[in-house]
């Protein structure tokens, strides 16, 4: 059963500290995870006899949302006025501090300390300053909330974000070179955030990837989808991480084929060629200059990295090898003199001279 507290709250703009006494928490560990809050309407300065629910603050420590605030509808509770309900034996204080939050919000910080340490908690929540609505309003609000949630979901979709995909397939490996045999092939990309797609055999591979391994003779590729406003479009590119392409192989460039589900053509290019990995990556990032894109891109990449790197500690040959397939500079190519140090001289050049300038 939920325990409901009632707090007289004179004015939502009158922030301060309040004590709430609980007569019903005698040593029982409870989940204190939920508040239901209702505030006085604007302009009402104090509680009167015809007080309505809107003028009280309900704090529901119940486990379910249905326990409150119905019990207090239409009247002030005896709990508030009747000292009998305030048991001295099991008295416990809930300290509540309410301060101004952002517009139409209040920040509520509370903590409870009990003699037997039960029910001890400390949290800060943000609540709607306007309080809860009646049933009709509630329904309307729920509908509005649903619409808002949908809009928010869409909005989220429009925000810069990234989704991790993993694809797998059996591959044929050239035993001599260790390279994937060259050719065009199709991949089925699996959005790991959509559970049903896991059932296409990728799930077990993904779990394996998380452990740092994929199965022999299989390939696991990662790609990201990055979307940035204002263009409604997704751009897909190959992953940052190198794949099981062998030490002599250039990183592949993936080209998305507009089919459903999307398929990709993999080209093993030369990093110095006009097309290829570098070109693809360059295209990928060049739109992100400027603070808005920079910020968005940073967030997007953070997400990608956070998720992707969990399973990217390679152990086997066929894994996300973090080998650098770019052309690396060698020191002998940087200088004609090949880093031979200049001749060391030992002569002393100490001098000192002063000339009078002005008097």
């Amino acid at each position, binding site marked *: 059963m939920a325990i409901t507290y009632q707090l007289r709250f004179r004015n939502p703009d009158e922030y301060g500290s309040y004590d709430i006494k609980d007569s019903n928490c005698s040593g029982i560990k409870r989940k204190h995870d939920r508040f239901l809050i209702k505030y006085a309407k604007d302009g009402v300065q104090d509680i009167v006899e015809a007080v309505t629910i809107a003028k009280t603050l309900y704090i529901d420590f119940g486990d379910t949302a249905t326990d409150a605030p119905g019990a207090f509808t239409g009247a002030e509770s005896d709990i508030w006025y009747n000292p009998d309900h305030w048991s001295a034996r099991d008295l416990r204080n809930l300290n509540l501090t309410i301060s101004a939050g*952002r517009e139409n919000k209040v*920040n509520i910080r509370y903590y409870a300390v009990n003699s037997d340490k039960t029910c001890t908690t400390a*949290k*800060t*929540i*943000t609540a709607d300053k306007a309080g809860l609505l009646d049933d009709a309003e509630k329904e309307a609000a729920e509908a509005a909330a649903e619409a808002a949630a949908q809009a928010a979901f869409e909005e989220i979709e429009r925000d810069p974000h990234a989704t991790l995909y993993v694809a797998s397939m059996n591959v044929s490996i050239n035993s001599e070179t260790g390279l994937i045999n060259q050719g065009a092939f199709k991949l089925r990309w699996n959005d790991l955030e959509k559970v049903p797609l896991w059932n296409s055999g990728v799930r077990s591979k993904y779990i394996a990837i998380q452990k740092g391994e994929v199965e022999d003779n299989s390939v696991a590729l990662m790609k990201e989808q990055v979307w940035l406003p204002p263009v409604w479009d997704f751009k897909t590119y190959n992953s*940052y*991480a190198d794949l099981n392409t062998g030490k002599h192989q250039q990183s592949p460039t993936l080209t998305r084929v507009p089919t459903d589900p999307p398929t990709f053509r993999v080209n093993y290019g030369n990093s110095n060629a006009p097309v290829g990995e*570098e070109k693809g*990556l*360059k295209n*990928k*990032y060049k739109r*992100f*200059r400027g603070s808005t894109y*920079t*910020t968005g*891109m*940073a*967030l997007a*990449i*953070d997400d*990608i*990295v956070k998720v*992707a*790197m969990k399973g*990217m500690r390679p152990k086997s040959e066929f894994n996300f090898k*973090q080998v*650098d397939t*770019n052309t*690396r*500079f060698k*020191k*002998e*190519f*940087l*200088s*004609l*003199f090949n*880093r*031979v*140090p*200049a*001749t*060391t*001289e*030992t*002569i*002393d*050049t*100490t*001098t*000192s*001279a*002063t*000339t*009078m*300038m*002005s*008097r």
Partner: protein
Amino acid sequence: MAFDTNSTRVHKLINLNLFSGSTDVFRSAVGGYFQIESTEVRQEEQSSISFQEYSVRDPLTPYFDDIIPSSSLKETACDEVVVTNKRFPIRVAGNGEAVLSDAYWKALFVGGWFAGEKINAIYNENIYGYNYFESSLSYPKINAKAISGSIISDEIEISDNYNNYLPDYESYIGRLNSELLIPNFYIISDLQSYGVNATGDDQIIITDNTEGNNEVPYDKDIVKFVTLDGAYENINTVLNYVPTQIGSTITTSPLNTLLSTEYLPKSFVQNPLTASTQDAIKNKLHNIILDNDALTTFYGGGDQITEFAERFPFYTKINFSLDKPIGPSILGATPVFANYITNNEYTTRFLKTLKEAFTGELVALSPTNATYASNLSFISSSEDTIINYAAETTENKDYRYVDFIEMLAYDYNNFRSKTDNCYFVGNKNIYRDAVFDTNGAYRYMNSVSSINTMNDVIDYLNNTANFDINDLGGMLYQSDNPCYNETVAYRVQKVGGSPRGDARTQSTLQNYWFFNSKDVEEFNFIDTQVKYGRDYTYHVYKYVVVVGAKYKFSDLKVTKAIGLDNYDDENNTYGLEFYDPITDKKAEQLQHVDGDDTFENIHTLGTLVQEYSEYPYLADFYLNYEPSVSIYEVPIYSKTLKILDNPPNGINISPYQHLDDSQKIGFGLYYDSFNNAATFPSTINHTDRKIKQDYMNAQDLLSEDSMPFESISRPRYMQIYRLEKKPKSYSDFDNNLRRTLDLRMPGSEDTDETYTVDFFDDKIKTNTKYYYLFRTLNEHRIPGHLSEIYETELISDGGYKYAIFNVLYEQDLEEGVYVNPSKKVRKLIQLQPNMSQLTLNTDLVDFEQEAHTQLQNLKIGSSDDLIWNKKFKVRLTSKKTGKKIDLNITYKLRSS
């Protein structure tokens, strides 16, 4: 000289191989070298460097008649090298009158013995560097102030500001185990432009302060640090004023902010950081980096830096002008390499790699340490003279540098972060995130910035307008064209305590790295992470990109005569044959141009081995060269200082006598108002003198400079010194402290309220003189101005006792032992030569000749015993005391 010592110190860094006497013997032989010249001026040896010019086709050594470069034969030495690299042949023609034979000619180049004489080789194939460059170094402010009529415009100041006395804060940070845990000016200032939002899960997020309240990515450890692990959420308003209302007037003050009233004295001292936050901060803030964006934010406009800084209780400040390239317009030239770095979004990566390289964190990119001649020209003076001196010094000095091309290649090859002990001030963005990438997720970001910068640098070097060598005199062998250089970054290194040993080996508390942004002229560095009264040494470095060259000679071929008589009288030419002097085998000449009138063309058996020449001896070799772009670490200035409060004011004294038989006298002590014309207070003991030295040093004050500021903390103590013997100086009062009065108001332990008036009574003996001296100490026990000395005596004439108070000033203390140590003797005694000693003797003068020719024939004096140039001793003996004075007199003639 591109710079004027009237504005700045002019610094030249010169390779030692450019000096005469170096292993580059060829240079010493033909000219184009620096040399040391010594002269004696007023019996003092003076030395300076000068440059021996290389005259094109007129070498210094008598063995050579000519040096002929063939830049038309220039070719790329190695195709595989990414930077441009060339070689072209140089021909040396021997002088037939000086060179004795073919064998002698060979020995001149490769060394050996000839006719019992050892001949040192002029030629070698060593690799030499040419990085000689000239740049400006700011005058230290204290030196600039000492220069009479100073017009120095380029100064560097390292000093401190003490603004606000927060005893709890001072005491608390004094106990912290690391300065890095002290609130940082840049971090807190940066957060003032953001919003803060506390989430339900006890997280504090930074927002963009707009209606949308969008999250701005910010380093979570830094947020924990400044919000004290969440105990102080509204860090974004901490620099706001707390208005003070007096009557109807509301005033604001930089001393009265949330920072000074809430955050520092209360929240900060009451909420120690968690161990995890401390560890993270001590790691990250070891190196604080201000990239181009951060510099523009802080220094791009307005004077917000100064405004915000004044709200902090105290800090070290370093002010100086950032180097700008010199150009024809008043705005200067456009920086080349700084632009490459910024345009390619390489700033953050560049600064981090620079940090890693010069702090020894990268084995693969450790700086080279090499010795150079460091030549400095400047104006020198001191405060006790009005004479300025033009000074020039040279010394061997070690400099560190990294090859910029290697650095770019390193960054390209190593896209994963090696270190995380640094923090880029400001919100997170993709460039700042990328440099901390340890798993390759930002590989593209990290590699494309460096490779694009490298492309730009190589393009720059390939442009012959920027770098080209066509003969020895064009660049390598002359002094009028120092290498192009450009300051791209700076470092402020903070070391705890006084300097010990080499600056690089001391324990560095913290480094600040910042880019030389083209949008910032004056840099006002603020360091609030300091404890009160602790010594800190600051080293300021600049990092200069220098476009120099590496070069070497190779493929030497020399000639010998073809046949015994190889001279063609008809054509006045010699028949010569080239050979390799190491193997003595025939070899083809290098300086061959198709169509030349050579053996190959005029004789069917002729090859490139043979040559007709107007010179009897020839030698060919290649000059191989390539540009070298290096980043040099150049120290600008170092100073040790400590944060100190200002001395308190003086005391007005009002003496009085108790009109009873108690034999008590007393003094009313009134804390005086601030006198901004006063110099630093006179001192009594060693501790005072150390404080004075530290304060004057920190504030760059000359001895006659007035005190710029009043004591910030209130006067806390009044000290009363007493002597029973007349002092000769203030130092005599040392160890004679009679009493110290504590001015703190009773019951005000929790406040800093103190009295400014107090009274001191003293019971003294009658008919005995006492000397009293008074002064104030502030809360930091810094002594204030000394009062006058009160010579006090309670006179008892047998019945009535009355006090006499005489005031003595500092100048009254010296006893007049030598009040008038000299008398003008002329009034008492005058020694004059007899006229016979003064008449002109013209017996030997020939008046037919010009006067100046006869001067030596003119004799002075007609006496047989002339006094000139003879010494006389005149002894004066007092009849009264018998004391003697000897006058030693020599009569000399002088022309006037």
